[in-house]
């Protein structure tokens, strides 16, 4: 026989003024299960909670109803009060007589009071069917997976590993470093990108808690927060990294020349190559697409010259598995292809290049040893025109959003140009200068003075060839006139876009992405590094365009989240999840189909007691179940129930008034 205690709150005047609380108390006392009912000014206050604790002990209550404000407000508070009194906190029900009665029926006290009574009756009825529930604790595998070895991935991996949590870092190219490794100097301080990045790269390689898996891709992720299992494909490198010393004899001798991705195809690399001198790991890989030994079976020079015999043309892709508890996605970004700008003659004029190509040229270790040259004739350019917002902020040809970093790197480029070619002059066509950031505005101002670059506010309408010069015609909106600039070289500040395989990755991880292909955060303001899927976090440009400082901060934030997740040996979880009654389950598996979280799997149980024959039933994975109840409603044999919202509880509510 249930013994319910009802505690009705005045909430100061909030309830008392519009609901006749004493009358409600009298009314509920008539319910036969109610053994104790009392009102108080502030139930949530300490004395209020004290009354609850005492009553539980004194009247041997089996469930508690608090009639007060919305359960969304104080349910937790009162649950705590219950457990303090040694009672299972889930035996509490809250009747919402403030938001749902006193505040919305202020003109009709009688009706409000009656409604309050009904709400109490419903809560009492429900609480009678309440069951003792216990927090679910899910064991966690304390290992993190970081996807992408750019600065974001590197930072996240290091921060997590420094907390003595093992990290698996997967990078799809042969070396970590990402886009930042291609940069020359970085705004706003102009410190050399390599100088600040390479030490971190080395740390990653040497860190005892980091397992670096380069030249690999994530194939499949299964499981749930704290208990993921990931399949990783190690692409065949045809070089045995264990024995290879990285001496470089192989790629020096290799006869096959291939456009060099690292240098934006400005120069050539070999078919066996290390992407760049400072690569980590500094071991070459064979590009199976171009290696004549692998394609035609001819050559084999690298094998001959390798003293260690590390070359193995028979190497196959390898699939490895790792158990992990959390994932940090840091797949970075791509640059937009400016082909649609036909009026600029993109593709026809050699001397129009993208900013990343320019970056490589002016980079000390670049294809032209740090001197910008005209691709057409190799001459050093004097007049260079920089055009911003190529693809960015352009609904017609590109994407609507602002790429955020172009203003700053273009400013940087004018400085670099000024440094490398002293008698050069830079022209910058811009829409706005967006220099929000620490030291950014100052940086731009200073650059404008130092380089004496000509800033022209307006779009370029046409580029045409005159002799060996490029004529750049645009508008100078500030004087409202068409201007023409004679340029030796034109640099397009192309937009930052999401990596093209982001959607596939998102599907494989089971997270969402926006219309541009950027991965979506759980909340734009309050949960900017989490995804909607528990245990998967986002770092860097894979979520939206960012500069290096922002990327690094987000990466560290991810690390903090991962550490938080792994703080205990197990994760606590709300027990309000679905449960299956095998006896009733007929194994139609419709619930498996409907569950949005894949929390339901199938299980084999014997037919009746001691029967050899097995039958299929559904099985809930408590760790994954979020407690939506979709499966409960579609289960025809009512074999599934949702703790906290069971059918008996809801029926009691329905029929109690």
């Amino acid at each position, binding site marked *: 026989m249930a013994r319910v205690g009802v505690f009705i709150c005045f909430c100061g005047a909030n309830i008392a003024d519009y609901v006749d609380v004493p009358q409600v108390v009298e009314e509920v006392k008539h319910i036969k299960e109610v053994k104790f009912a009392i009102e108080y000014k502030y139930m949530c206050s300490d004395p209020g909670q004290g009354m609850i604790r005492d009553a539980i002990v004194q009247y041997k209550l089996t469930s508690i109803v608090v009639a007060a404000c*919305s*359960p*969304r*407000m104080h349910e937790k508070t009162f649950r705590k009060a219950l457990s303090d009194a040694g009672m299972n906190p889930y035996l509490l029900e809250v009747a*919402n007589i*403030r*938001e*749902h*009665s006193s*505040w*919305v*029926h*202020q*003109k*009709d006290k009688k*009706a*409000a009071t*009656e*409604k309050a009574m*009904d*709400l109490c009756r*419903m809560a009492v009825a429900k609480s009678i069917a309440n069951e003792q529930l216990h927090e679910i604790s899910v064991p966690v595998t304390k290992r993190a997976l970081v996807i992408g070895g750019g600065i974001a991935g590197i930072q996240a991996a290091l921060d997590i590993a420094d907390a003595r949590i093992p990290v698996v870092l997967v990078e799809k190219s042969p070396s970590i470093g990402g886009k930042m490794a291609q940069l020359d100097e970085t705004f706003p301080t102009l410190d050399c990108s390599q100088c600040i990045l390479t030490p971190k790269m080395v740390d990653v390689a040497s860190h005892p808690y980091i397992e670096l898996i380069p030249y690999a891709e994530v194939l499949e992720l299964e499981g749930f927060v704290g208990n993921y299992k990931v399949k990783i494909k190690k692409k065949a490198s045809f070089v045995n990294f264990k024995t290879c010393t990285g001496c470089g004899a192989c790629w020096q001798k290799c006869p096959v020349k291939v456009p060099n991705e690292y240098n934006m195809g400005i120069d050539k690399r070999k078919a066996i190559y290390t992407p760049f001198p400072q690569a980590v790991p500094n071991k070459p890989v064979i590009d199976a697409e171009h290696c004549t030994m692998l394609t035609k079976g001819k050559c084999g020079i690298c094998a001959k010259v390798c003293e260690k015999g590390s070359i193995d043309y028979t190497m196959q892709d390898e699939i490895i598995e790792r158990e992990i508890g959390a994932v940090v996605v840091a797949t970075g970004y791509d640059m937009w292809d400016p082909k649609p700008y036909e009026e600029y003659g993109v593709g026809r004029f050699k001397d129009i290049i993208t900013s990343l190509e320019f970056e490589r040229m002016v980079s000390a270790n670049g294809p032209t040893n740090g001197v910008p040259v005209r691709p057409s004739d190799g001459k050093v350019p004097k007049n260079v025109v920089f055009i911003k917002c190529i693809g960015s902020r352009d609904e017609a040809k590109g994407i609507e959003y602002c790429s955020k970093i172009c203003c700053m790197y273009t400013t940087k480029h004018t400085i670099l140009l000024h440094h490398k070619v002293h008698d050069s002059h830079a022209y910058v066509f811009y829409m706005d200068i967006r220099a929000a950031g620490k030291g950014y505005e100052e940086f731009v101002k200073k650059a404008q003075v130092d380089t004496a670059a000509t800033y022209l506010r307006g779009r370029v309408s046409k580029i045409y060839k005159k002799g060996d010069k490029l004529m750049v015609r645009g508008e100078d909106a500030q004087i409202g006139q068409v201007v023409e600039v004679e340029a030796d070289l034109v640099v397009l500040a192309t937009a930052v876009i999401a990596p093209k395989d982001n959607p596939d990755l998102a599907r494989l991880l089971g997270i969402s992405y926006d219309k541009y292909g950027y991965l979506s955060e759980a909340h734009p303001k309050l949960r900017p590094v989490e995804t*909607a899927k528990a245990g998967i976090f986002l770092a860097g440009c894979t979520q939206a365009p960012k500069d290096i400082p922002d990327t690094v901060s987000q990466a560290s934030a991810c690390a903090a989240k991962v550490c938080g997740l792994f703080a205990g040996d197990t994760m606590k979880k709300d027990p*309000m999840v679905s449960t299956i009654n095998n006896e009733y389950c007929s194994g139609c598996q419709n619930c498996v189909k*409907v569950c*949005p*979280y894949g929390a339901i799997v199938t299980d084999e149980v014997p037919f009746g007691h001691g029967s050899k024959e097995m039958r299929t039933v559904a099985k809930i994975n408590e760790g994954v179940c*979020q*407690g*939506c*109840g*979709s499966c*409960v*409603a*579609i289960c025809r044999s009512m074999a599934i129930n*949702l703790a906290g*919202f069971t*059918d008996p509880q*809801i*029926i009691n*509510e*329905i*029929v109690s*008034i």
Partner: protein
Amino acid sequence: MEAEVKDQLVSIEKPGLIAPPNWEPVIMGILCNWCSYAGSDLTGTSRIQYPPNIRIIRVPCSSRVDPWFLIKSLQTTADGVLVSGCHPGDCHYISGNYYARRRFLVTKKLLNFVGFHENRIQFSWVSAAEGPKFAKVVNKVTEDIKKLGPLHLYKKENFEKK
């Protein structure tokens, strides 16, 4: 005498059945926790007044609502039901309200088919920010059902008599 009877409210499904004087309908409101229940709380906090006929049940998601919750409500205590959930695409549980939407339509049509007035079963999408909308919805539902008079189809008591 004639006139009196006229003024009295009759059950739309059973014109023979006359509502008791100053009869007030009972409406069972089943709200999803994340949008509509939060929305109804907002209605309270912003002190927007609405008729007191509705009795609210909290469920985690509109997809938790099994059609026979409605059937049972109508058979026992309620003269009408209102189910409310998150707007399509906003479901806290990704896709719950889409499954619910299908069940709701079929249930509504079926109940109407066997003789319940369609206004006795109503649905709404109310987001956590739509306090005013929740009040509007409750107002409409209450008015509709007041017009329909008391529901007396398949009520338990009708049949215990015989």
